[in-house]
């Protein structure tokens, strides 16, 4: 997709190049790459649970920021808008198609989850992050901004299925609520960056109530299980490192 001709569609530069498995470059200090490198991307088609479309919006006066400027800022300073306790280890240059970012997420009960995302699409109006195998959900999140009347409406929209039966149980018993709080906090921080105290609107639609039982085996890739095992085994790894090093 990098070779451009007159026949090249105008969206060509906005999409990530084709990848079969995710590659991770340097791992930033504090990040863990146990659930990203070598993993495949997953769309809602590959997920297990019910399919949801969740939309979170915040309205800002367009005199304060235009949609294009809002998206440019959001892409450049994306990690700064994440809620406390969660880290997005992306490139310092902002969000660009094909970038892979490592994530450290706070789960209910104080659990940590190490996972990642790839930038599937990014242009001046929107950008989309897609999840890899093992992430709590299979799907993508699209961040966009549009002018509606005299307002700039910033939006985060998640299209997802829980990746496996354990995540589905987790989402049912508090996980969806946790996710709502996460995106509320993100949009509140985004609005605050522009000096605005906007209320976040939420719309949740269950697109498909069926669970895809043929996908239950996704549990073997679970980033939550692998992160927990990795954390529990950390003292043993340190000990072995001292003996051999």
């Amino acid at each position, binding site marked *: 997709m990098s070779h451009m001709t007159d026949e090249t*569609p105008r969206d060509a530069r906005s999409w990530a190049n084709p990848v079969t498995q995710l590659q991770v470059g340097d791992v930033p200090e504090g990040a863990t790459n146990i659930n990203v490198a070598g993993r495949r991307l997953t*769309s809602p*088609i590959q997920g297990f649970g019910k399919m949801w479309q969740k939309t979170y919006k915040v309205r800002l006066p367009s005199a304060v920021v235009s949609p294009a400027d809002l998206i440019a800022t959001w892409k450049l300073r994306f990690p700064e808008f994440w809620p406390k306790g969660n880290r997005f280890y992306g490139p310092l240059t902002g969000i660009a198609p094909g970038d892979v970012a490592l994530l450290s997420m706070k789960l209910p009960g104080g659990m940590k989850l190490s996972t990642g995302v790839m930038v*599937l699409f990014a242009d001046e109006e929107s950008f989309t992050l897609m999840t890899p195998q093992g992430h709590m959900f299979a799907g*993508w999140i699209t961040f966009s901004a549009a002018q509606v009347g005299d307002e700039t409406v910033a939006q985060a*929209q998640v299209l997802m299925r829980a990746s496996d039966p354990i995540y589905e149980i987790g989402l049912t018993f508090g996980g969806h609520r946790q996710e709502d709080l996460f995106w509320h906090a993100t949009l509140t921080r985004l609005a605050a960056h522009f000096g605005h105290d906007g209320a976040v609107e939420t719309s949740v639609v269950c697109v498909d109530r069926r669970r895809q039982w043929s996908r239950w085996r996704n549990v073997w890739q679970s980033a939550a299980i692998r992160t927990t095992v990795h954390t529990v085994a950390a003292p043993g790894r340190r000990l072995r490192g001292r003996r051999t090093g």
Partner: protein
Amino acid sequence: MHKSMTAADVREAAAGVCVIDIAGDVTAASEEVLVAAYTDASERGARAIVLSFTALEYMNSGGIGLLVMLLVRAQRKRQRVLAYGLSEHYRQIFELTRLDEAVGIHDSEAAALTVAGAKG
């Protein structure tokens, strides 16, 4: 919000098989047009829906999301979804988003109709 620049015309290619000719841009703003076309095809009794992308000019991630939603509607009604006319660029996007695992992609309308079981 952006105005849709999508056209989606429905034609019955064979008994139980409808082709939706998609032209222009496919984005989140195309929802009304594509859902109307899908509903039209379903009301004609389509058991298989063939999406023609020969006149596709632009698609963003919102457009891909919309195709996933259409696919779910079709699966609920036990309809098969096939596609043809995708350029190399859009084929790669179907592969990247793994939409190709649920939508049968073909080189030509004839090939798609054969797989759809059209009897002419």
